[in-house]
């Protein structure tokens, strides 16, 4: 029993906490893989029983259906894969518009909620409570059937200033159409951006060296605008011509037509999410200690400057993490588009699923899509969060 003697000097491995910790994790992962493989095998067996095989070849076949709005070329002869891309871009455009608009509205709401003006304060509070307690789906359907489809018919369109058309087929706004010189103009814009960035860094370096505070943002913007304006007038032909909406037979055409589905979805999502963002902003602002504000006032900073220079930078640290989850919510909620007939990625994938019967493939594609969207958003927000957080030494 030599081993027995040895064991007394060291702890046996089944009582060694360090080994047990690792062992526990390894066993857990093995268990997880086991469970996963069973689920996978079960699915395969089930599919094989019904004579269905997994394959993504069908994505190359002709889709055969039309889609109402698209950002890329698509006809009924395009493939399922292209149809999926159309949906993807539509989701992307709703998400981007939604995130930007709901942030702006949310910040205004959050600040209003803390306003000392009784009316503004109460109105904002009422709005936040109302929105946060509504069901989003009901709200979207309200915007669709109750607002945008109640607009007049094409022939009786409401026309604002002769160029904004309000009809139940969509809202038409004037829009620029690129002409032959547009590519050159784009190049000029790029130069403008580069110049603006140079100005930005030059001014920042100057400010660091001298300790003075030049109006960096203003000058950067001004550089860009000046370049853009010069480019616009120097070119022999205007890079964009203004196209105004007009009625043509059964439809309105020209300019940019925003469909009722798009409008209902974005306005619903924006108004809903902005309420949550408003609360996030309010809590962020309230988390900044009162002493900071009082000190700023004592230094003679104006109310707006206090907000901009003292409160917001500190509040942001509290705001960003919950704000990220609101962004994620908005992106994921955009899949409710199907309720109002907007062809987002979920809607299009659903149609493809129906026409091909490829449920497992399409559902996994949709899940993966939303996962990737969410992860990208998270990564960007986490990066921003890391950048603005308190630098600790």
């Amino acid at each position, binding site marked *: 029993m030599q081993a027995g003697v040895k064991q007394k000097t060291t702890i046996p491995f089944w009582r060694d906490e360090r080994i047990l910790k690792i062992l526990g994790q390894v066993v857990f992962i093995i268990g997880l893989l086991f469970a996963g493989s069973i689920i996978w095998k079960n699915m395969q067996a089930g599919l094989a029983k019904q004579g269905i095989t997994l394959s993504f070849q069908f994505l190359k076949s002709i889709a055969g259906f039309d889609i109402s709005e698209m950002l890329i070329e698509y006809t009924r002869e395009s493939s399922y894969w292209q149809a999926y891309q159309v949906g993807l871009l539509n989701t992307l455009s709703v998400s981007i518009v939604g995130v930007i608009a709901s942030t702006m509205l949310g910040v205004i709401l959050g600040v209003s909620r803390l306003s000392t003006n009784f009316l503004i304060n109460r109105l904002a509070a009422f709005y936040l409570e109302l929105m946060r307690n509504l069901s989003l789906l009901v709200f979207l359907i309200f915007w669709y059937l109750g607002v945008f489809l109640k607009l007049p018919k094409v022939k009786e369109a409401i026309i604002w200033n002769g160029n904004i058309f309000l009809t139940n087929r969509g809202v038409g706004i004037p829009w620029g159409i690129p002409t032959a010189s547009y590519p050159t103009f784009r190049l000029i814009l790029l130069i403008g951006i580069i110049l603006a960035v140079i100005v930005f860094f030059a001014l920042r370096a100057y400010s660091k060296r001298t300790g003075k505070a030049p109006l960096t943002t203003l000058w950067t913007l001004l550089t860009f605008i000046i370049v853009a304006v010069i480019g616009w007038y120097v070119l022999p032909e205007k890079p964009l011509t203004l196209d105004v909406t007009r009625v043509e037979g059964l439809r309105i055409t020209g300019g940019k037509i925003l469909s009722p*589905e798009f409008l209902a979805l974005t306005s619903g999502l924006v108004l809903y999410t902005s309420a949550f963002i408003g609360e996030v902003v309010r809590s962020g602002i309230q988390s900044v200690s009162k002493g900071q504000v009082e000190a700023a006032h004592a230094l003679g900073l104006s109310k707006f400057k206090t907000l901009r220079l003292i409160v917001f930078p500190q509040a942001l640290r509290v705001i960003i993490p919950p704000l990220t989850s609101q962004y994620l919510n908005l992106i994921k909620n955009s899949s409710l588009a199907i309720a109002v007939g907007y062809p987002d990625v979920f809607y299009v994938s659903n149609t493809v699923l129906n026409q091909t019967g490829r449920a497992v493939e399409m559902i996994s594609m949709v899940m993966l899509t939303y996962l990737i969207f969410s992860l990208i958003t998270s990564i960007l927000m986490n990066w921003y969060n890391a950048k603005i957080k308190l630098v600790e030494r």
Partner: protein
Amino acid sequence: MRKTLWFISIVVIASLALAACGGGATTSTDGGETVTVVETVVVEVTSSAPVVVAPTGFGVTLETVKARGNLICGVNSQVPGFGYVDANGAFSGFDVDYCRALAAAIFGDASKVEFRPVTASERFTALQSGEIDILSRNTTWSLARDTELAGNFVHTTFYDGQGIMVPVDSGITTLKDLEGGTICVQTGTTTELNLADVMAAEGVSYTPAVFDDADATFAAYAEERCDAVTTDKSGLVSRRTVLADPSAHVILDVTMSKEPLGPMVRHGDDQWFDIAQWTVFAMFDGEEFGITSANVDDIKASATAPEVKRLLGVEPGMGLKLGLSDDWAYNIIKLVGNYEEVYNRNLGPDTPTYIPRGFNSLYTDGGLLYAPPVR
């Protein structure tokens, strides 16, 4: 630490148990206490998470249905005349009555059927996954559905064609008039594809407005989101009855496609397919031989024609071939009715959803209904 260890060991045991019941190999030769623990957990897991797999294979569906004691039928709940839920929550319609006929053939009781409303986009998944035994929901027979969707169409019970409906005051009379217009259509249907095909062939540019179910599609049409709405002609007739002012809408005199509608079963159970198919034929035969729910008892008692005797089970043997009792067809006609009765009850001249018989007449009347002989 103790807690963590406990947690880990429970997880491990649970996953082992899952592995064991999933793999189907539960041979553990070790003795001692640990094994006892494993065994208890195995029992728990199997009882709490049964693996749901659609019943397939010859005769399995009938067995499952009989063991369950009722038939689960996937139907429409939004198209009056075909599948509709009335104010009392009762299902009615042509496709719904087919389910009752099938239940009558199996159980001798037309009420032993559970109706499960499915949307156009859910229906095939519901059938594939075994959530429903049969799909009877104005579904168009097409090649892709017959193959890729792993289903078999039983028989055409209603010959339909795709139509298009417009408001009367729009002045639209042909498809060409719809140039630049918007057309409401339901997703996941052959209609959606036909529309794209026909409009491409006609060279008419249009915008589709696509919705998830019939209610949403027709709500948008009623709100004048679209210049026209398209679906099977039968669907248009039936949905027109629930619009605010039915007389303000007209169905254009164009047929955009062939739409043979009928029930659908899963691949893999030929017996079930046969039962479903002969239920349709029994209803055709009932009309052809003039057997109705009212006179079926008299005819059964006094029948002399061998064909009728075989059908009604006076001469035994036919039901057994299907795995049913010999009075299967008698029960269908007695409890639900023949094709004509079912048609008139749901789509006849006395109903708001009246659709002329047209192709859906017996071959003897110039229609397409023709049943193979019962022998």
